């Protein structure tokens, strides 16, 4: 315990408190910091013209990626949970993309979606005849491109394995009882499987949202937030302010606003969970 407490205090608590302090200052790393009170927060809400847009883009990205990702992982897990031969091969196939390092996956996606000589656009053109989107070159298609990348690399990953574990934990007796009562396979899924795995769904949803809101690396590697600020997500906004312009005080204020947002969202979800998450153990 002791070594960790020391480490935890030194590496988490101290920085967290320092960050809170810096958020009330302006600090450029070279000259000493200057206290500005709530100035940074006022600037974020009223003067920073990338603040609200970057939040909106982050919400768009997370709002599409998380529901699709969680439902996708659940569907894959349900398919893999059918007791047939060869599922381990498919499980491996679905899991592989999540092993590809983010930077490598982004470089590869950039290439797959290359508008002129990439295979995806060629395929789209040949099958539909319409002019395919220019993906990373078109501001309105860059976020969809990043969403497709996120889905490819996360749908079959750890989240799917956690769902599989959840599905396998549903007791056979419940299914047998439902069968005796005449429930078909859809009814069994809807009224036995789904309620029993709501804790797993909740767990994946909460972690998924926390992760998706912090999206950074793919946007930076693919287009550095561009074109025309199209993927200037909130995490990029913090990064650029801190390490691009060395506005450490302002960036700390942005980071704290972000922390408050994420903690509030998680808290709201935990409150909502009471209405839809079913914990079997509590009701025994």
């Amino acid at each position, binding site marked *: 315990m002791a070594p960790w407490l020391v480490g*935890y205090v030194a590496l988490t608590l101290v*920085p967290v408190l320092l960050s809170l302090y810096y958020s009330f200052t302006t600090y450029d790393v070279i000259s000493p910091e200057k206290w500005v009170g709530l100035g940074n927060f006022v600037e974020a809400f009223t003067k920073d013209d990338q603040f609200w847009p970057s939040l909106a883009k982050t919400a768009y990205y997370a709002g599409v990626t998380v529901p699709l990702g969680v439902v996708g992982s659940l569907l894959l897990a349900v398919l893999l949970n059918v007791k047939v031969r060869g599922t381990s091969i498919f499980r491996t196939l679905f899991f*592989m993309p999540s092993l590809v390092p983010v930077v490598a996956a982004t470089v590869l996606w950039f290439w797959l979606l290359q508008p002129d000589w990439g295979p995806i656009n060629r395929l789209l053109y040949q099958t539909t005849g319409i002019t395919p989107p220019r993906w990373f070159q078109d501001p309105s298609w860059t976020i969809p491109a990043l969403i497709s990348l996120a889905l490819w690399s996360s749908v079959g990953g750890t989240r799917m394995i956690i769902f599989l574990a959840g599905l396998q934990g549903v007791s056979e007796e419940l299914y047998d009882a439902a069968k005796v009562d005449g429930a078909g396979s859809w009814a069994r899924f809807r009224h036995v499987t789904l309620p029993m795995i709501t804790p797993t769904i909740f767990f994946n949803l909460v972690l998924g949202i926390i992760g998706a809101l912090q999206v950074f690396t793919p946007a930076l590697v693919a287009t550095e937030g561009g074109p025309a600020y199209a993927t200037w997500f909130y995490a990029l906004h913090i990064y650029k302010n*801190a*390490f691009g312009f060395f506005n450490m005080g302002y960036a700390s204020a942005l980071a*704290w606003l972000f922390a408050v947002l994420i*903690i509030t969202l998680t808290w709201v979800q935990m409150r909502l969970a009471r209405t839809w998450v079913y914990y079997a153990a509590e009701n025994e």
Partner: protein
Amino acid sequence: MDATIALDRTTSRGKAAERWRTLVLALTYAGLSALGLLFCFPFFWTISSSLKTGPETHFVPPTVLPAVPQWANYVRIWSAQPVATWLTNSAFVVVATVPGAIITATLVAYAFARFDYPGRDFFFMLMLSTLMLPYEVTLIPQYIIYQKYFGWINTYWPLIIPSWAGGGAFTIFLLRQFLMTIPRDLDDAARVDGASSWTILWRILIPLCRPALATVAILEFLRQWNDFLGPFVYLNTPELFTMALGLRFFQTLPESTQEPKTHLLMTATILMALPAILLFFSFQRYFVRGIVMSGLKG
């Protein structure tokens, strides 16, 4: 008479059920295969592109396979870019961090799972709540501290030190959950025989935790090997770059019109992904068990 009708009915129902089951099976396989192909295509395209010549990667329409597989690309990449240096640097960071994360996280998880002391649950909740903190909250002040007081910018220290201070909250959580599934009677029996807390951890719990430890080791390896932001913030000179930084550096190099670099870029991409994939497959057995048994399903 009645009996035959009844028999008929059961067999026809049996047949229908049989047919239904075959249909479900066929649909499952069809769905799995279609999705499998979809998931595989990016891998196929990367490998195929890595074996093309430079100009071949820019053909319109694109060719599915290279006319002549350019295996030499896998030799040329080493001299085209300092890939060997980058891979070695990545390997160094992994070797310097993963053991630290495993050792310290095990100790902390042990303290959370097996000892009663005031404030334990509070600290546990505090640790879990750090999972919600966006990394920028700690990254910025850490950078300032490392820069101002230690002069550690452009060194590996800022990447290594955090791993020796408990690793990540998630790692601790996973190990703690796993330890909770091991009956305390084992500890008590050993204690009666005079074993100390260290002996219990070392001789009894750690051997039983092997699947969870392997899971943690894999997750930590992947996290370090794939990490971009940390090296990106702290490392400036290409000689110190990890592979993640190097790959992005290579990608942003301006492309000359005569000689596209996409084929080599794909080769480098494969070189970066390969260690992660290979390592995972050698420990896959433990990984799935580690997640299932730690009850990580909410």
